[in-house]
């Protein structure tokens, strides 16, 4: 059986030569829920953008059994649902229906399948019947939910979320945590919200200055205040 995510010796430098990732390796098994933590500028978002080929560095990435290359971009992007930090970046269509249908349309599904996927995805994030709403009239919490629905409609094997609780009020944050807890997909979640990490994600990868400094149980990592402090994080 393949791993959902298998990253081997990944390195990446930005065009100005600044190294963002250095020899990053880890594996995530199907169904595993993993946190990616680290200070600002650690390379978390850069790493996430490699998982469906938006950025490409040196090294090997095997995603859901496909080795990442130009030829496998289609199946990999269908298998990895990427939820961006700012929902306004993700919800680029005029209405909720068009946004959630975007992925299924590009997967080449029939109209009836697309509509079924939209209904199911919106139902699973508690936004049933909101298809005709205009994206910029949604609250921030609703935008996050629709952004997640827009990737769930593709029925991905892996969900990759970048700072999912950023900008949410306590109720919106709590609702989102409940929603993520109930989703069966393999999950890699980049976050500064260590309380959410402790509640939701049993394994944590600590990234700093583009390198993996720790990879293990969340409970063990959060119980090491020296390690957290050394990498710009704060113990709970």
């Amino acid at each position: 059986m393949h791993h959902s995510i298998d990253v081997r010796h990944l390195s990446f430098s930005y065009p100005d030569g600044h190294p963002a990732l250095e020899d990053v390796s880890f594996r995530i098994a199907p169904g595993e829920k993993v946190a990616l933590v680290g200070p600002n500028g650690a390379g978390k978002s850069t790493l996430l953008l490699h998982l469906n080929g938006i950025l490409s560095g040196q090294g090997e990435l095997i995603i859901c059994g496909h080795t990442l290359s130009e030829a496998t971009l289609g199946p990999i992007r269908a298998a990895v649902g990427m939820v961006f930090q700012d929902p306004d970046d993700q919800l680029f269509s005029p209405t909720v229906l068009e946004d959630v249908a975007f992925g299924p349309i590009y997967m080449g599904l029939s109209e009836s399948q697309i509509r079924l996927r939209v209904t199911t995805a919106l139902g699973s994030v508690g936004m049933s019947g909101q298809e005709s709403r205009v994206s910029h009239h949604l609250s921030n919490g609703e935008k996050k939910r629709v952004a997640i629905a827009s990737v769930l409609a593709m029925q991905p094997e892996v969900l990759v979320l970048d700072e999912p609780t950023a900008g949410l009020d306590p109720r919106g944050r709590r609702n989102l945590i409940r929603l993520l807890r109930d989703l069966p997909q393999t999950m890699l979640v980049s976050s500064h919200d260590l309380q959410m990490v402790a509640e939701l994600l049993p394994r944590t990868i600590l990234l700093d200055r583009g390198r993996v400094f720790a990879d293990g149980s969340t409970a063990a990592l959060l119980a090491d205040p020296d390690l957290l402090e050394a990498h710009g994080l704060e113990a709970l």
Partner: protein
Amino acid sequence: MHVHYLDPHRSLESPVHALDGRVKFILTVAFILTASLTPYAAWPVYILLLATIMSVEILSRLGIGYVQRRASLALPFVLAALPLVFSLEGTNLFTMRLGSWTATASLEGLEHFFSVGLKSWLSIQAGIVLTSSTSFPDLLQAMRAVRLPRLLVAMFGLMWRYLFVLADEAVRLIRARAARSGRPAPSAGGAGPRPMPRLAWRAAVAGGMAGNLFLRAFDRSDRIYGAMLSRGYDGEVRSLPNSPLSLSGWLSLAGGLALLAFLLGLGALFGS
């Protein structure tokens, strides 16, 4: 805080609002074409066109006053047609002398000027009724239905979607500037407050803000493109197919087009 007032759509219950966006879009384009193609000085036809659009304004419950207030914003552009009064030959009305330059106004020129003004006014009203009674997503659907290039329609959609996001960002920038534009109160010693900053300085600040907004928009466009790619975008614009037009939609379309064709024919009789 979100900027919503830029959206001209007014959600009301009316037969015009209930009409299919595709029918409204086609009839509006046809109305504007009819107004444009009606010959100069076909005054009875202009009156009929005005009666038609005002009836629609009343039927839409937008109200004539609302539409006229919005239409008045565009009227100064009609002044661009003012040279017609002096450039067409015909029955002389009066002559103006400005130094060595002489301009003679003609009756035909005046008729052309008023015709252009009326045509513009009628067309603007039709546009206002369309955008006020139809949501932008429905307008985009109508544009796709009449086979406008998909890429162009997608660009309209993205522009509309992000206009509000950019306006929000601009408002935040302006507030941040205002929050840091405090001026100390005059001291007890008698030194008065500093004079207002020079216009050039304020223009430089505004320019910096515009540049900042552009850079933010540029960054955002990169992130949006990444979000599109990650959901399978391959450079070709695709969308859900349009639902078929209902019988009442077809009847409204046929009735509207027949009326406009009749008015155009009438214009050929009255026009000069």
